[in-house]
């Protein structure tokens, strides 16, 4: 493993499999009454959140705490950042306090990258602007692998031959960027389905296929990932109305019926029910939304564990079985 996790592009297939397999080991822990390992005892993990994201923040917090790390939550609101402190000064402050890892969520693309140049500890990108969100992609891959390959039998396997359709605002989506990179590295065949306005101009250079139509992609999808639509995109003329978007690219019950029997429906949350995903789809047995949240904690444990080089894995596993 490298020192930081900033982009899914930094992960080779072997790196990604190591994280997924480590998560698989750690998943067992979640089922135990005492959900805690001593591996990161005495280490400090800072959650540096410049954007409100309770979901991601508590997921990282739970992950770090289950590994016994000390967790400091640093929210930009009401802090020195609100008083105009620069990212660099915040970084130097955290550095002085001895952060072993900084988990950063920031509205600017590249913020995690910049931070990594200013701190000695590990940097984990928890979403930077419209760039990437690599732990989301890892938890998505983990969820797909468990659901489509079977939880017990999945270890060591990639996502070879699995067909994934990612639907919606790819242009502004850090989730889509990380997923395209990671899933293709794991051998999946990724298709992006979106209106042309919500695809990057040079999307043909990405390791995936592109379609302007959702319906034709559904019957050949093993997993469909619905991206959150931000209604403010409408005012910038990316699409005419939420209703039209929903009609053309929303996943309702009728569309869901076009999926193969085994196919799953994913969403990184938070969902806009009735816009990109209908309530009956979100609540259906195909939906992995809740599972994704649970898997998020497990994946983030694996990432922190591997980045911070906790005790060797067999030892940790022994702790689990104790």
């Amino acid at each position: 493993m490298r020192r930081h996790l900033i982009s899914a592009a930094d992960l080779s297939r072997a790196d990604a499999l190591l994280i997924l397999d480590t998560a698989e080991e750690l998943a067992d822990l979640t089922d135990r009454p005492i959900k805690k390992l001593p591996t990161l005892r005495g280490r400090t993990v800072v959650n540096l959140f410049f954007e409100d994201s309770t979901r991601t923040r508590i997921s990282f917090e739970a992950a770090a705490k289950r590994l016994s790390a000390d967790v400091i939550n640093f929210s930009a609101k009401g802090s020195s950042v609100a008083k105009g402190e620069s990212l660099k000064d915040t970084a130097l402050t955290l550095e002085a306090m001895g952060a072993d890892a900084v988990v950063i969520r920031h509205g600017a693309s590249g913020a995690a990258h910049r931070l990594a140049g200013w701190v000695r500890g590990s940097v984990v990108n928890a979403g930077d602007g419209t760039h990437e969100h690599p732990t989301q992609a890892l938890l998505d891959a983990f969820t797909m692998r468990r659901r489509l390959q079977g939880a017990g039998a999945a270890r060591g396997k990639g996502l070879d031959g699995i067909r994934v359709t990612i639907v919606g605002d790819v242009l502004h989506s850090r989730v889509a960027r990380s997923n395209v990179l990671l899933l293709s590295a794991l051998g999946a065949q990724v298709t992006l389905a979106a209106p042309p306005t919500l695809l990057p101009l040079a999307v043909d250079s990405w390791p995936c296929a592109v379609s302007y139509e959702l319906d034709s992609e559904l019957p050949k999808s093993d997993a469909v990932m619905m991206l959150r639509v931000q209604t403010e995109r409408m005012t910038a003329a990316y699409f005419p109305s939420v209703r039209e978007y929903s009609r053309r690219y929303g996943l309702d019950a009728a569309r869901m019926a076009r999926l193969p029997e085994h196919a799953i429906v994913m969403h990184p949350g938070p969902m806009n029910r009735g816009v990109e995903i209908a309530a009956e789809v979100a609540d259906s047995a195909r939906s992995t939304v809740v599972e994704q949240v649970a898997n998020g904690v497990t994946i983030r444990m694996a990432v922190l564990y591997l980045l911070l080089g906790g005790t060797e894995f067999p030892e940790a596993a022994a702790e689990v079985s104790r």
Partner: protein
Amino acid sequence: MTGPAPGKGGQGAWLVRGAALAGAGAGVAQADGPADILVRGGTIAAIGSGLSQAGARVLDADGLVALPGLVDLHTHLREPGREDAETVETGTRAAALGGYTAVHAMANTDPVADTAGVVEQVWRLGRACGRCDVQPVGAVSVGLGGVRLAELGTMADSAARVRVFSDDGRCVADPLLMRRALEYVKAFDGVIAQHAQEPRLTEGAQLNEGEMSGRLGLAGWPAVAEEAIVARDCLLAAHVGSALHVCHVSTAGSAEIIRWAKSKGWPVTAEVTPHHLLLTDELAAGYDPVFKVNPPLRTAADVAELRRALADGTIDCVATDHAPHPVEAKETEWPEAAFGMIGLETALRAVQQAMVDSGLLDWDGVADRMSARPARIGRLAGHGGPLAAGRPASLTLYDPAAPPEAVTPGASKSRNTPFAGMELPGRVVATFLRGVPTVLDGKLG
């Protein structure tokens, strides 16, 4: 900008011995071999071989190229208002070290150079520094607001004798205002230098729209946002018969449009920056905002096309768009960071690398693109050569054979050079402004 600048002494005679002349005008090509240049009383007294020393200080120019003093059409000196980034003093020091004898100071200062008062202030500061002529550029619109014309005629009639007008940093986006500005400056032989950037197409834009912007998740800056304005303005210039100058051309498409406009005989000129001749958007991969600039770095295909257009004269000249920023404006997240790069001290070296070492331009060509043509576009009669007896002795001695050396911090108050640590060939050895050495042996005189 007439007459010698005050101060700094040194009106003694100089004999530059054995330089290869570039930009010597008709009949004296560099192929004729090295020549001596005798400088006396601020002018070139004689050019020839084996000239007599006769009390003059001798500068051995063996192996050096002598160019007419470089002229920059596009410099941000930041004074008044942002003296933390640059001042006329520090900016002209950087200019002299880069081989420049005249720079055009852009109008986007604080206050904006949109009145005779401000342009005269900048002009006087330049004269007081004395290292390099400072020719103020006047704003096109009041406060760069793009709504009302600034008092262009008053600035033209002022002591600063403004001839180039620009809202640089912002585009004169309103087509009617652009038309009127172009028409109006005909009365005093002015030129409108346009920062071509369609504002709606570049809202929040960060990086050239293409593979890199998509990968990095930075809002794309489409080439068409520049090209649409370039095309419109060429048509307007043709319609009203006025001089248009296109600032910092950055795309292959803009070059093509300008080539077409020139083929029609329309009064259009254009500049390209050293960084757009050498660097691409690939450099943004590390999110280091030192590579953030307006217009953005483009692709390798654009770079190749810009070089070709400069070589064939479609693009008239190289202009630095020297844009100093304090450290904190760049030591931040990419979207927060200021646009701009400094370039005065590295321009000639960058042009050698991009144009001369690649075989696209010879030194006569460099003299034309970095001195003669910018002087003509800027209406600076005392600059631009040719290196000939009777002309003002403003010249630059350059050593193209100096081994490539890493770019290090220089005289500019700011450090935002995209070439930091990068090796560039060549070295400016000496700069003379009307017979006075402003730089000798690569150091400020």
